[in-house]
């Protein structure tokens, strides 16, 4: 019998590395101080956001410059649920996801009427609509924003330290869940279809892939994940305002730079990109707008010179895989091939 093999030697090594890293990260409260934990949590959220954007753009071919719509929506849902209905923040994070997914349905119906770069700008317009609507809601602070009520915050855990540990582990768990979900999706039949769409949409369609339905589903799922991360982000910030919630810079520009530099259309890319991004940020943070200009220049340079990003280069030169996502047909000694 033959079968489809996903792993390779490097991916087995990769899995081991990932396993060890996860253990180390879970145990971070033991070896890291408060600032380190906050930094790590922030990195986790960017890995998740970038991976979701990568799924949308790199696999489904939907380039969005408006994902900040769902980051902000998630954040505002967290605050609204807490302030209006007294829902505990940790629970609100998990409610924000499905609610955002519902909201994303009519959004998708509208913007899917646009294509290519016009679709991209359409997503931006939607984000602006969300931002403008949010600034109209005075119960949530209107244009200047609002803080998470102290009572809710305090009720999360017995001590501040415990609360911060809860948030840290939630960030880690949520990010791992997002990555796992993406991995499972890509490994499935739908993942194969997505990879086909990524490589040649027309060919995929003529081979029976329901391109439109798949793209729609990916968009909604991405909205779900993005909103949950957004809720988490603003739980960490404890304060929200329309401009921070729907910031193009924070939730789209940085995310895009991370994915482009790390490697589009590869699951490992966003992880690499986030590491590079934060390294740069730690060393160059104080430069303000110069820093953004540099990021822009680097992203352009990478797009032109190495469009597959850092991880793409590594794959090309060394053939490595961190995660077992390849599909190789392994023949039996008998010589027959059975469909997997």
């Amino acid at each position: 019998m033959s079968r489809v093999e996903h792993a390779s030697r490097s991916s087995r090594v990769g899995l081991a590395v990932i396993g060890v890293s996860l253990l180390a990260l879970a145990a971070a409260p033991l070896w890291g101080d408060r600032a380190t934990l906050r930094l790590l949590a922030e990195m986790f959220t960017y890995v998740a956001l970038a991976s979701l954007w990568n799924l949308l753009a790199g696999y489904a071919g939907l380039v969005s410059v408006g994902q900040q719509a769902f980051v902000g929506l998630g954040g505002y849902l967290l605050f609204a649920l807490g302030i209006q209905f007294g829902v505990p923040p940790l629970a609100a994070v998990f409610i924000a996801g499905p609610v955002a997914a519902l909201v994303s349905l009519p959004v998708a119906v509208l913007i899917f009427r646009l294509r290519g770069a016009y679709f991209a700008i359409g997503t931006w317009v939607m984000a602006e609509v969300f931002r403008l609507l949010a600034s109209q809601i005075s119960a949530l602070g209107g244009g200047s924003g609002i803080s998470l009520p102290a009572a809710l915050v305090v009720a999360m855990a017995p001590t501040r330290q415990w609360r911060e540990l809860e948030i840290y582990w939630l960030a880690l768990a949520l990010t791992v869940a997002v990555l796992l979900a993406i991995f499972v999706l890509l490994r499935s039949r739908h993942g194969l279809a997505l990879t086909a769409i990524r490589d040649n949409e027309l060919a995929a369609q003529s081979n029976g892939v329901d391109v439109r339905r798949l793209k729609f589903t990916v968009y909604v799922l991405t909205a779900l994940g993005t909103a949950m991360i957004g809720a988490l982000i603003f739980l960490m910030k404890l304060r929200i305002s329309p401009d921070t919630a729907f910031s193009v810079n924070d939730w789209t520009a940085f995310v895009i730079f991370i994915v482009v530099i790390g490697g589009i259309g590869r699951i490992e890319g966003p992880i690499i990109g986030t590491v590079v991004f934060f390294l740069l940020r730690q060393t160059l943070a104080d430069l303000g707008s110069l820093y953004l200009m540099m990021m822009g220049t680097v992203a352009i340079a990478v797009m032109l010179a190495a469009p597959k990003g850092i991880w793409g280069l590594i794959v090309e030169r060394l053939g490595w895989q961190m995660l077992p996502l390849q599909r190789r047909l392994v023949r039996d000694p008998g010589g027959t091939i059975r469909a997997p």
Partner: protein
Amino acid sequence: MTEWLNVVVQGVLTGGLYAMFAVGLSLIFGVMRLVNIAHGDLIVLAAYVSLMVTQALGVDPLTSLAVVVPLMALVGYALQRGLLNFTLGEDLLPPLLVTFGLSVIIQNGLLEVFTADSRKLQAGAIEVLTAQLVPGLWIGYLPLIQFAVAILVIAALQALFYKTALGRAFRATSDDQAVAQLMGLNTRHVFALAMALSLAVVAIAGVFLAVRSNFDPAIGPARLIFGFEAVIIGGLGNMWGTLAGGIILGVAQAIGARLDPGWQVLAGHIAFLAILALRPQGLFPKVSG
């Protein structure tokens, strides 16, 4: 009653400005299928260039056009030839991401040089002059001039595209790059000329913007969005449709603003979304997306 009439007329005239934002964008899309995300920021860049020119040469904004327009055209040629030509191809991602990166660079570059302070160009008395065409209906001279210029620009571009050899070259290159080369057209040069033309229009739009209202480095994306909305409402591939789209957008915004100043931009977005929902191909489409 006349109050609402005034509102609508204001909206129509503003629509001319939005059409100016849009025309450069749709020109480029028509010729090379490229959507320039940095388009709005280039409009703001033009505004700042005009600021520098008026300050350095001591001229008024209208005269500064004589410098700003050729300068921006040159920038457009260099930009296309030096950077954007390398992003063109089958893949959607490179031009989108490169122009996005460009947008970030321009915005932050302007921020570094000019700070976030709000500026405005002074055009003199004409800014406040109004005429009463019909009793109770006041029309500002400046918005009227800008609207007239918008119409002139669109008419000129139409003539260029459909009655000149250059226009033929644009249309042929847009149809079939390889065969256009067989006609002796250096397509890299043709694309660069198209971008130069687009930025020439952007220059006019930028100066108009600077005279009309306050500007700062961050307002670029909003201009891109207004231009984009005008194009979609009007329908792809039709410059006069873009004018109509701009007018509808302007009127929607004016009505929204009249109801509540905070609703101005939102009203425009709603009009856009309504068109997208009810007639996604736009009002007067010539080509499909």
